[in-house]
């Protein structure tokens, strides 16, 4: 089980308290009818699936209830950063823990 640091609760909490919310920082086009079909399709359906460092949303549903973002290495499952929704992705996440 992952231990996920919740930036709102200020502590690591067990993974089963959370729900995964998909890739982070996917921006909805402000005016959908103004973008091309390709750009809209890309927004709706296409997500990156890297082997390595990945920013994703989590919701602490059985806890504080908030959405936040996590940078996780999909190879090692190590969580490199955890930050509040709306905050920019840390430029170069350092391994703060372990």
């Amino acid at each position, binding site marked *: 089980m992952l231990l996920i640091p919740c930036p709102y*609760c200020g502590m690591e909490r067990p993974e*089963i308290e959370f729900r995964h919310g998909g890739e982070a920082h996917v921006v909805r086009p402000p005016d959908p009818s103004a973008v091309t079909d390709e750009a809209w399709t890309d927004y709706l359906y296409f997500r990156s699936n890297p082997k390595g460092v990945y920013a994703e949303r989590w919701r602490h549903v059985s806890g504080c209830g908030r959405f936040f973002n996590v940078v996780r290495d999909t190879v090692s499952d190590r969580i490199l950063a955890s930050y509040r929704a709306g905050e920019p992705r840390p430029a170069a996440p350092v391994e703060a823990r372990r």
Partner: protein
Amino acid sequence: MADPWLTPRSPLDDLSLPVGDKFALADMPPAARFVFRGAEAARAACSTAFGVALPKALGAAGSAGERAALWLGPDEWLLLAEGESAETVAAAIEAGLADVSHALVDVSHRQVALEVTGRDAARVLSAGCPLDLRTKSFPVGMATRTLFDKVDITLWRRGETDFRIEVWRSFSPWLAAALTEAARGAPAA
């Protein structure tokens, strides 16, 4: 004689709950319960109106007499007023927050409270709760939403061996049975 239709009944009324020094479960009396949400101004005004300071600290709980306020999230608290009428409490809070933006939701009948006590209380809860319940990581006075197995609970540690669980009403017989079963299998300390 009291009108049976107007007498509050608990879903745990017909169950025999374990008692003893090692592990005991008790059904708590009915309470007025609210989920309160609001920014700092609302928090301060509600603390005055409710008579209990709504804690700012993460995972903290404050209480005064039969009233308590539990931190649930950055702008969210659970207010408990045991033995009081939800209408009266809500009216008092609303009166103090007339000009402040906030949300006050009456959840008195959504959930019931179970008291878990005894030497084995933390160990039995650990059968289904994924948090580290040792006092160094879950000290007395801490409250949080979490899980027991598949059921959402709000867990509040009121003493080293004294927990209060808030759980949704329809889940409570299952939770009581699961805790009782876990206590039967708890290895000797």
